[in-house]
């Protein structure tokens, strides 16, 4: 990590220096080692550029705004970010010309909530040694395994190949290994195998926690609408709170439906949920269904392919396939 950090700083200052881009959207250190913030920097304050294992957030959505501004912006894209980037370019939300995409390697990013979930509180500093994470806390030093505290998306990493870039910090084949991908549909399969009532109870339990803060929506690179239907009083479905269980269901069904076929499975929705609702399991259900019904499709794999909901084949399965599939009634 330290090595890459050095390379990154050098490369970024070179690109800003030679005018390839006039600013970078990078990271700024926070109060604690984990509370990094996205920040735009220019030549004069580039020394603030910070990069560590907590710089995992998908920044591609910021490029919508950034690519409207004057000059070229340098974006740091991890392999997984490039999927969202492609998708945004495909949907004309990001002006490709205004972005210089620097592909950076990644060997998995950390989730501080997972560290806290292990009962480690009062965190003062964190040291990431590749395999082991050392945490200094107000209540003594703790350690945990890196694999235990990886972000959800990293556990099902799509691989180290960048799907879009102008330049790579290091060639993909020389990049460090990515975490071994778990089966990303494991939990979806598990839910599908439940009875209908069990699934209902599971999702009620989860969705009833929703406080409708819209973090999942606002962070989502696919949710790039200027005005969301749920904010538009003329849509007939706008609301600011879940006044009834139904609204919790509706918000999350429609949120997932609107990104179906466009969601790259970046997992930001679940990462930012203050209630840790596994929202990615809704998106993954759509992804799994699309793969099964219409053939494997990975949104953002490129910036041209037609999405599965804007395509069809004459022999597509009928909706009644749902009656035959899934768990018990």
């Amino acid at each position, binding site marked *: 990590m330290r090595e890459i950090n050095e390379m990154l700083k050098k490369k970024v200052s070179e690109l800003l220096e030679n005018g390839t881009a006039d600013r970078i959207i990078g990271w700024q250190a926070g109060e604690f080692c984990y509370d990094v913030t996205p920040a735009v920097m220019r030549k004069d304050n580039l020394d603030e550029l910070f990069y560590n294992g907590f710089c995992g957030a998908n920044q591609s959505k910021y490029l919508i705004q950034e690519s409207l501004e004057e000059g070229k912006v340098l974006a740091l894209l991890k392999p997984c970010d490039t999927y969202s980037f492609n998708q945004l370019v495909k*949907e*004309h*939300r990001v002006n490709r010309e205004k972005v210089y995409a620097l592909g950076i390697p990644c060997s998995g990013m950390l989730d501080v909530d997972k560290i806290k979930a292990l009962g480690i509180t009062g965190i003062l500093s964190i040291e990431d040694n590749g395999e082991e994470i050392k945490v200094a806390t107000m209540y003594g030093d703790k350690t945990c395994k890196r694999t235990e505290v990886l972000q959800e998306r990293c556990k099902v990493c799509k691989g180290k190949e960048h799907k879009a870039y102008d330049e790579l910090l290091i060639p993909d084949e020389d990049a460090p290994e990515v975490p071994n991908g778990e089966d990303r549909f494991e939990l979806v399969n598990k839910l599908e195998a439940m009875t209908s009532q069990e699934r209902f109870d599971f999702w009620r339990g989860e969705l009833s926690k929703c406080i409708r803060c819209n973090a999942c929506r606002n962070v989502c690179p696919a949710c790039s609408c*200027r005005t969301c239907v749920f904010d538009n009083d003329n849509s*007939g479905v706008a609301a600011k709170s879940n006044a009834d269980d139904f609204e919790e269901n509706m918000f999350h069904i429609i949120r997932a439906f609107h990104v179906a076929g466009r969601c790259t499975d970046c997992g930001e929705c679940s990462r930012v949920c203050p209630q840790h609702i596994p929202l990615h399991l809704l998106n993954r259900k759509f992804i799994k269904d699309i793969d099964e019904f219409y053939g494997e499709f990975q949104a953002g794999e490129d910036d041209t392919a037609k999405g599965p909901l*804007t395509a069809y084949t004459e022999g597509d399965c009928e909706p009644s396939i749902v009656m035959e599939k899934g768990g018990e009634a």
Partner: protein
Amino acid sequence: MQKIGVFVCWCGSNIAATVDVAAVAEAVKGEPGVVFATDYQYMCSEGGQSLIKETIKEQGLTGVVICSCSPRMHEATFRKTVEAAGINPYMLEIANIREQCSWIHKNKEEGTEKAIILAKAAVAKLNLNTPLIAGESRVVKRALVIGGGIAGIQTALDIAEAGYEVDIVEKQPTIGGKMTQIDKTFPTLDCAACILTPKMVDAAQSEKINIYSYSEVEKVSGFVGNFSVTIKKKPRYVNSDLCTGCGACMEKCPSKKTPNEFNMGLDNRTAIYIPFAQAIPKVPVIDTAACLHFKTGKCGICQKTCSANAIDFDQKEELITKEYGAIVVATGFNPLKPTKFDEYQYNQCADVVTSLEFERLMNAAGPTKGVLLRPSDQSHPKKIVFVQCVGSRGQSCRDHSYCSKICCMYTAKHAMLVRDKYPDTDVTVFYIDVRTPGKNFDEFYRRAVEEYGVHYIKGMVGKVEQVDGSLKVQASDLLSNDQMVLDADMVVLATAVEPDPTAKSLATMLTASIDTNNFFTEAHPKLRPVESPTAGVYLSGVCQGPKDIPETVAQGSACAAKVIGLLAKDKLLSNPCVAHSDELLCNGCSTCANVCAYGAIDYVDKEVNDHGKREVRHIAVVNEAVCQGCGACTVTCPSGAMDLKGFANRQIMAEVDAICK
């Protein structure tokens, strides 16, 4: 707030017997917006219609709900009625309380309750209706026909006959298409050239028809009635206006070794050439790949020879942009080249030919002057084997899945012609099925078998081998369960029909759709067979699917009738229930355009005023003249920017709410 009048029709006893119409009228009086409600015996009668008109005026209604039969029955009637009384025809909603209520329910209480709910749903929707005005667009009174084969010629002649201008774009140096290469036509065996060339001449001489030969369509924009098409005229290097078609240049041209496309490469032509004697226009073209002047900068004999001074080596490609009201696709086909069928030895053996090559070998204007000679040694073949379904009806990657439709008949024709001309020739046809639907078709095939003694064997050829200058054909005879090896002097392959390779790019330009085989798709497979789903684009001939000549001509004329119907209009009134994009909500993601079957959605960079913030945004704009109002875009649009007039999200939700009250 609307002022709504509700009119409940008895339809005699059709409704009144199972629905308490007075109760329905009474029940809706309390609904928001309703200021008047009544019932009447026959709303569609003159009395009923006057009642509506009078009430509109007396009460100052802004909208009308009629509870009656299906809107599919009388919506148009009542739209006219309310319009006559001065309100917008789209401020009308119909509650279907006959077909969907009184006729299917026996219990009056139940029927009345349902009728009330349906009426309330119609009121709820109408409360959100806005007046809609049908858009108008002009119609350019000129048609473009892409492709100058028999399909295109027929369509162009028929359109011209009705008095409209037609332009034909043909990529070859001459019009006429594949039919010019055919010898005789089934089932009458009349000479193809004899029936085609007069039509070519008619087309050339028509004042209304303008032929762009050796030209291609470069770009298409616009929509029904208002297409703008850029045509690329490739340089012939011969000035058409000066050329007299005397042919002296061809005689003198020293480059004589180019395979002659017209004769399927069975003989050679010069670098400057007219494809065939009856070509239209009868103006030569210089093949720059073969011409010594273009290759070496020397020569120029043709220029010296030409007494009309028509040779122009400096001619440049020309782009012409013209407007059209309608576009006809008549791009036709090409026969499959059986290079991947190694078992038939087409690549290796000159005496294995395709059916079209065989046509040329039999044609009096062909390379052998009509004498059937083997290409390998110019000897007369005594044994000929025909193989059907080459490249058709298969599922492997070298086959097409469809039946090419015409091969059975032309093979029977070939077999018959050979036996007629050379009775000492032994002719065998290997077939899977013989398909002869068509007037006098089966009779024709039976004549080949019974009168002309052609051997028809059910079974396919497994391989062809060349042994000592003769061919060994190994095949199965399924009916006698035998495998046979036949000696043959010549093998003729009935190769599949393939859409012209330009179909795909043309379809993209026209936003017309093509199927997996690259045939153009029709707007409706049964009811709109000569229209493409894109308004103003029509289909003629084999570009839509394999056809024989009579069918092609029939479709060409049908297509012309559709075009004439369009061009006869001065203005096009569009259905006002079309999609509309809210420019402040649109993200410009183009998802809507991806699902639009009509190419009705364009993207423009437009300055918008978003609550005081002015900025240029890339947003969707619906072309109302092209949009058909299906609503596919409205659902695919995540932001809800796209909505459908007349069936808006809020309107449908209001109906849902009213029904579920």
